[in-house]
């Protein structure tokens, strides 16, 4: 088991270095996508191995996925309002 932890740790360090390096390249909107993607990958690594989500009972995984779904509800519907503002050429609509 400790072996997997150390491997996981090294992978996390590598991803940290990667995201820092990638941020110096100018990729337009993909900078944000890359930053969030790599951070998401690191989060999954921590959750699966350090937090034993891999071998946890189904209920624990449901709780984890549920939390992500609810956070995405808050994010998507709120951003939905801000993205669609200004589509009507009338101030404040």
């Amino acid at each position, binding site marked *: 088991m400790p072996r997997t932890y150390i491997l996981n740790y090294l992978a996390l360090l590598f991803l940290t270095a990667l995201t820092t390096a990638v941020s110096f390249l100018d990729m337009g909107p993909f900078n944000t996508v890359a930053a969030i993607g790599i951070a998401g990958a690191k989060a999954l690594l921590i959750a699966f191995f350090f937090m034993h989500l891999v071998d946890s009972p189904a209920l624990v995984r449901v709780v984890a996925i549920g939390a992500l779904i609810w956070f995405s509800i808050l994010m998507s519907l709120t951003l939905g309002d801000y993205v669609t503002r*200004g589509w*009507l*050429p*009338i*101030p*404040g609509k």
Partner: protein
Amino acid sequence: MVDWLTRNIPFPPQASSVAGHVDAAYLYLVITTVSLAVLLAVLVITFAIRYHRRSRYEIPPQIQGNNLIEFGWTGATFGLFLTMFLFGAKVYFDLQVPPANAIEMYATGKQWMWKVQHPGGQREINELHVPVGQAVRLTMTSQDVIHSFFVPAFRVKQDVVPGRYSTLWFTATKPGTYHLFCAEYCGAKHSGMVGYVYAMEPAEYDRWLTSGAAEGSLSSQGEKLYQQYGCSTCHDLEGKGPGPSFRGVYRSQVRLDNGSTVFADESYLRESILQSDAKVVLGFKSIMPIFRGQLQEDQVLALIEYIKALENSRPNVESPSAGSTAGSETGAR
């Protein structure tokens, strides 16, 4: 008695073009919901009486449920609700999109009063004179907290949020005096922030316009500010200064330095006046000072009215000393 009745019939007068549509949607909703409620009440009461427990020991036949009925009334209710949604949405779009030929007025909400500015320069506190039969478009903002411009007789309401513009439009159809309320809680005298909207016959409205002691039209007041705050030094109307010219900018597509284009409505003009480095026009440098905090909301409205008036008229005053731009190099067009 009749007077008491008409005064106390709990229904707002229908005094705007859209009031009829809103009341029609309201009536549709009242009819469907009341009939559903009555149906349920009748069922519940008849079941309670008809199947009243006769003896403490009877056990009625156990009915578990019937999937067909369940899907039936699920689908039926959702279908009925969708018709309500469509009706409501249609009326909503009538309420949101102002006609092109509307008179443009400006309203500013301030803790506990409404300040209205007419294009002709008239200023009113807690009062609004509008002609009947002519669309009126209000571009509104707030100087402090959130207020809400609400005229029950016109069935219109729009929150005024500090830091940005909101739009509200109506066409008065019946002359009369109607309530104006603030419908978003805004502090101690929230219930005192009320006024009246006077819908008048067009002839009477014109007489009111001329009688008011206005010190020149709103755009002329804007032009005075335009000179006073030195806008003309950089924003020369012929485009010779370091700043972009404003002729024909209102309601045009403006290309920005970050490559995107933006529709130049009042919100864009306001943001560019107060926070000039937020959206810099292509080909110009962001050297304009920040006017946020120096200009009051109604001054910004006057400036915007002046810029909008530039669109279709030659600048009525030759800017004598506009040529000697203050030492800055000529901006690349």
